[in-house]
């Protein structure tokens, strides 16, 4: 058993991580800004998506649907579908964050893959839960600010600074999320949830539209949680 890290050291480590996640994600923000303003959205509309929708996968889905000639309804539906997993994230984060009123409204807005993964990567009991809270808030704010600045740069320059793929950023973001989930895999239940979720999403990827395969992983969590409870009660 190692001693809990001192708050100052942990705090700066969390803030460094939050900033680096924001920087990595912002390169995609530039791509999003450029894509948005070249597919029929004005600069203001592109920026509004980053400010108000603020969930990358949904924003790309909406813009790509319009770009491929889809209807407004189809574009809206695609963005909602991709945004559905955020409901599960905010459900999980609410006992961790313990917020009410205006802070609850703001916390909801900042609930995305990165902020949730960062919040949960910290031990919930560490420093009275402040480590988890700081990880969530700092990552949410870092990504929000940098994502929006990046969107603006992309929208006005209408070209990406660099190709995110050439920089290996697609792999870096996957690896970063994996590193954040890693500490949560502690026993056979969490391991089954992790592997089952990954497996079902991969099996369904060739047959279902984007967004649904990841969402289907929720079924795995329900089944494992249910069988785990039965074992406990038996």
């Amino acid at each position, binding site marked *: 058993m190692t001693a809990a890290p001192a708050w100052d050291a942990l705090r700066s480590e969390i803030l460094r991580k939050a900033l680096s996640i924001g920087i990595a994600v912002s390169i995609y923000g530039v791509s999003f800004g450029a894509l948005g303003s070249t597919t029929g959205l004005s600069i203001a*509309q592109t920026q509004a998506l980053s400010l108000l929708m603020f969930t990358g996968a949904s924003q790309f889905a909406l813009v790509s649907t319009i770009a491929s000639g889809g209807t407004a309804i189809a574009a809206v539906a695609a963005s909602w579908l991709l945004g559905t997993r955020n409901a599960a994230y905010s459900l999980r984060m609410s006992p961790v964050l313990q917020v009410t009123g205006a802070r609850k409204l703001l916390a909801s807005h900042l609930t995305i893959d990165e902020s949730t993964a960062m919040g949960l990567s910290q031990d919930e009991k560490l420093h009275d839960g402040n480590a988890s809270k700081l990880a969530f808030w700092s990552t949410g704010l870092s990504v929000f600010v940098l994502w929006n600045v990046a969107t603006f740069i992309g929208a006005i320059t209408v070209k990406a600074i660099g190709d995110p793929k050439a920089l*290996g950023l697609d792999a870096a973001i996957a690896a970063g999320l994996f590193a954040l989930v890693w500490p949560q895999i502690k026993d056979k239940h969490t391991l089954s949830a992790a592997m089952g979720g990954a497996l079902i999403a991969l099996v369904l990827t060739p047959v279902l539209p984007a967004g649904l395969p990841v969402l289907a992983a929720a079924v795995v969590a329900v089944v494992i949680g249910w069988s785990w409870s039965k074992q406990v009660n038996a």
Partner: protein
Amino acid sequence: MWFTVLAGAAGCYALKYLGAAIPESFLENPLVKRIVMLLPISLLCALVAVQTFGSSKGLTIDARVPAVGVASLVLWRKGSFILVVLSAAITAGLLRHFGIAQ
């Protein structure tokens, strides 16, 4: 177009708020508690898997696979977060630069 932008954003915000609006007493049920604890683990691992193997045509093996493999090794050897992320970026970047993988 403003309708599309605002309707999309309103729905996405409503989804984010939905989870936070569910009363905490609901989470006190042990079964619900376990499921909610496992949910983000399943969803995020599913996302990582799709980000690693997914393409517009289904599944594919390209530079991302060895990159995430190298990063996992760094993670297993207890490398720092930055090192994990950089090792993935550098691996994928180099493989693509030299045309070894897409």
